[in-house]
C-alpha cells in the first residue's frame, strides 16, 4: 500500500492514467454536457424570476417533475450502499474494482436529489426556515434529517477507502495535484496503526450505512404515504421505494461501470464476471420490483374503494396506460428477457437492460406522483399535467451536470480502488483459507498459490 511498488505500477498503470493525464476525448465529451448544464441553469433563472408558473404545474397536480426527479435521484443513490457496504460485509471478492465507482455515484447524486427539491420550492430564498423553524412532525423534516445523515455517512464512506489511493496518487503526481492529494491523503503511510484505524472506520461505516440508506428512501416514500391521497396512502410504500431504489441504483452502476471501462480501457479490471454478478443482482431486483408492484395494484383493484379504483383505472387502462405498460416492459420484461438467459447476459446486454431499467424507474416515479394528484378524492378537481420546456430543460441540465461531475471525479480520483485490488491480489492465501474454513473438517494449512496476475 505504501512504499515503492514499481513492479506493480506497470501492471496497474491504466488505473493511474486518467488521474495523471487528460486526453482530448475527455474535453470532447465534457463540452456538450457543460452546454446542456448551462442551458438547464438558464431555465432555472427563468423560474426564479417569474415563479413556478413557468412550469406545467397546476391545481390539482401541484407536484410534478421536480419531485419525481428528487425521488429518482435519491433512488439512484442506493447504488453505493448495496454494493460497497453489503458486499464488503459479505467479504465478496468481486466487489473490489466496483466499490469506488458505486460510492462516487451515491455521494454525487445525493446533491442532485437535494437540488431537485430546492428547485421545487416556491420560495428557495427561505430555504433555511426549514432548519430554523422546522417541525419534526412533517415528513419533509424527516427527509432533511435522513438525507443529511446519509450524505455525511456516504461521503465518509467514500473518503475512508479513498485515503490509501490518495497516497498512491500523491506519490506520482506533480504540481497543484500533488498539493491537493497531499492535503487529502492525511499523511497516509500505511503504518500498522493507520491501517488499524482505517479498517475499523470502514467496518463501522459499512455496518451503519445500510440501515441509514434503508431509512432514507423509506422516509422519502413517507412524504407520499403520510397524506390521504388515493393510492398514496399505502402501507407498502416504504419497502416498495427501497426496492425500487436499489433496483435503479444497480442499473445506474452498471451503466457507469461500462462507460468508464470503455473510456479508460479497464477491460482487465472490470471483467465480464463483474457485470455478470451485478446483472444477476439486477435480475433479482427486477423480480422483486415486479412482486411489489403486483401486490400494490392487486390490493387496490380487489378492494375496489372508489377513489383508489379511479386512480388505478387511470393508470392501467386510462390516460396513463401507455406510460404504465411501457414501465412494465422496461422494468420487467426487457431486463428479465436479457438477464435470465446466460447467452444474452453479456456486458452489452447488461448495459441495455440497465438503461431500460433507469428509464422505467423514472416512469414508475412519474406514475406514482401524477395519476394520484390528477384524480383527487373530490371529483370536481380532476386535472392534467404536462411538463413545460423549463422543467424538461432543468431535468436534462441536472442529468448532464451529474454525468459531468462524475467524469471530473474520475479525473481527480482513481475510479477503481487500486489498493483494494492489490490487497485482493496479495490476499489470495487468506481468501482461500477462509473458503476452506466454510467446508466440513478441520482447517488444514493451504499450499500457497501464486497470484495469477494478468491473463
Amino acid at each position, binding site marked *: 500500500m505504501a512504499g515503492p511498488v514499481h513492479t506493480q505500477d506497470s501492471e496497474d498503470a491504466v488505473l493511474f492514467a486518467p488521474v495523471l493525464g487528460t486526453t482530448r476525448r475527455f474535453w470532447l465529451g465534457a463540452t456538450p454536457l457543460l452546454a446542456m448544464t448551462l442551458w438547464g441553469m438558464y431555465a432555472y433563472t427563468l423560474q426564479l424570476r417569474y*415563479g413556478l*408558473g413557468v412550469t406545467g404545474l397546476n391545481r390539482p397536480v401541484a407536484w410534478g417533475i421536480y419531485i419525481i426527479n428528487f425521488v429518482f435521484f435519491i433512488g439512484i443513490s442506493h447504488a453505493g450502499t448495496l454494493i460497497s457496504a453489503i458486499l464488503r460485509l459479505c467479504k465478496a471478492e468481486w466487489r473490489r474494482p466496483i466499490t469506488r465507482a458505486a460510492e462516487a455515484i451515491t455521494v454525487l447524486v445525493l446533491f442532485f436529489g437535494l437540488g431537485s427539491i430546492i428547485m421545487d420550492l*416556491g*420560495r428557495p430564498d427561505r430555504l433555511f426556515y426549514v432548519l430554523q423553524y*422546522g417541525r419534526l412532525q412533517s415528513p419533509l423534516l424527516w427527509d432533511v434529517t435522513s438525507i443529511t445523515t446519509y450524505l455525511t455517512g456516504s461521503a465518509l464512506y467514500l473518503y475512508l477507502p479513498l485515503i490509501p489511493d490518495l497516497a498512491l496518487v500523491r506519490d506520482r503526481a506533480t504540481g497543484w495535484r500533488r498539493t491537493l492529494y497531499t492535503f487529502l491523503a492525511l499523511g497516509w503511510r500505511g503504518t500498522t496503526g493507520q491501517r488499524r484505524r482505517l479498517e475499523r472506520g470502514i467496518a463501522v461505516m459499512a455496518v451503519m450505512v445500510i440501515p441509514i440508506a434503508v431509512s432514507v428512501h423509506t422516509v422519502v416514500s413517507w412524504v407520499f404515504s403520510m397524506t*390521504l*391521497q388515493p393510492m398514496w396512502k399505502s402501507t407498502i410504500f416504504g419497502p416498495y421505494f427501497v426496492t425500487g431504489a436499489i433496483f435503479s441504483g444497480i442499473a445506474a452502476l452498471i451503466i457507469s461501470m461500462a462507460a468508464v471501462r470503455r473510456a479508460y480501457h479497464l477491460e482487465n479490471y472490470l471483467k465480464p464476471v463483474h457485470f455478470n454478478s451485478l446483472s444477476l443482482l439486477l435480475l433479482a431486483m427486477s423480480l422483486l420490483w415486479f412482486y411489489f408492484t403486483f401486490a400494490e395494484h392487486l390490493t387496490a383493484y380487489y378492494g375496489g374503494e372508489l377513489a383508489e379504483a379511479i386512480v388505478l383505472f387511470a393508470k392501467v387502462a386510462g390516460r396513463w396506460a401507455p406510460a404504465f405498460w411501457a414501465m412494465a416492459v422496461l422494468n420487467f420484461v426487457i431486463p428479465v428477457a436479457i438477464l435470465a438467459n446466460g447467452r444474452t447476459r453479456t456486458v452489452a446486454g447488461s448495459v441495455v437492460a440497465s438503461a431500460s431499467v433507469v428509464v422505467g424507474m423514472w416512469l414508475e416515479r412519474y406514475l406514482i406522483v401524477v395519476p394520484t394528484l390528477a384524480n383527487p378524492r373530490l371529483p370536481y378537481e380532476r386535472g392534467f399535467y404536462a411538463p413545460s420546456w423549463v422543467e424538461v430543460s432543468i431535468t436534462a441540465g441536472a442529468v448532464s451536470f451529474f454525468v459531468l461531475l462524475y467524469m471530473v471525479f474520475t479525473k481527480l480520483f482513481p475510479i477503481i480502488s487500486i489498493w483494494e485490488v492489490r490487497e485482493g491480489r496479495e490476499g489470495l492465501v487468506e481468501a482461500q483459507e477462509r473458503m476452506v474454513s466454510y467446508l466440513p473438517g478441520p482447517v488444514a494449512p493451504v499450499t500457497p498459490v501464486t497470484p495469477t496476475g494478468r491473463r
Partner: protein
Amino acid sequence: MARWGMVIDLDRCTGCQACVVACKAENNVPVVSPAQAQAGRLMLWMTVIPEVEGEFPRVRARFTPRPCMQCENPPCVKVCPVQAMMKSPEGIVSHVFARCIGCRFCVQACPYGVTYFNWQAPVWPADLREALNPDFSVRPTGVVEMCDFCHHRLQHAREMARVDEREVRGEGEYVPACVQACPAGALIFGDLEDSTTAASRLAHSPRAYRLLEDLGTAPKVYYLKEG
C-alpha cells in the same frame, strides 16, 4: 373557548356565487388570465361546485359552496415543515405567508383541495387594484394561501369587544365575507360551542353531514342536505 364553524344549507343555495366574489374582494385573492385558468391556476378560496347527476327528466343539480373545511384534525398543519400552517385555540386554521417556503405539501395533504399556490406574483387590472382591501395582506409569489374564515375580521371584532370589556359574541359580531354576502342566507356562521347560536343548532340537525367524514379530518363546515 369558542369553536368557530359554518353550516351551509344546500336547500337555500342558488349558486349565485356572491360568496365567491365577496371572498375574492375581502381577501385580495389574485385574479388570473383565462388561459391560466384553463391551465388549472385559478385561485378561489371560496368556490361553488356545480354537480349535475342523471339524464333528463331525472336530473339532480346541486350547488355546493366550498370554503376551507377548517378541520379539527387538519392534515395541512401536520405536514407543514416550517410551522406556516397553524390552528388557533379557537379552531381557526390559518396560514402565515411570511413563513411559507412554497413546498406545497399542504396542497397535497388536503383531501378537499382548499389550498391554493401563487404560481406567479399576483397582478390586478387597474380598476381591481383600487378595490384591494387594506385590512388584509397581498401575497408574494411562491407562497400558499387559503380561506381562514376571515380571521382578520375576528381580530377586529375582538378589538371592538375588548373596548366594552367582553368577549366576542357567538354569532352576529364576527362573520366572514362570504356569509355576509350570501343573499339567500345559505351560509350560517357562529360558535359551535355556544348552544344558543344557529350554527351549533343546525350542526346537530338530522340533515347535517360533512364532506369525506370517514377520513377523520373532522371538518367544521357542515352541509345540510336538500330536504
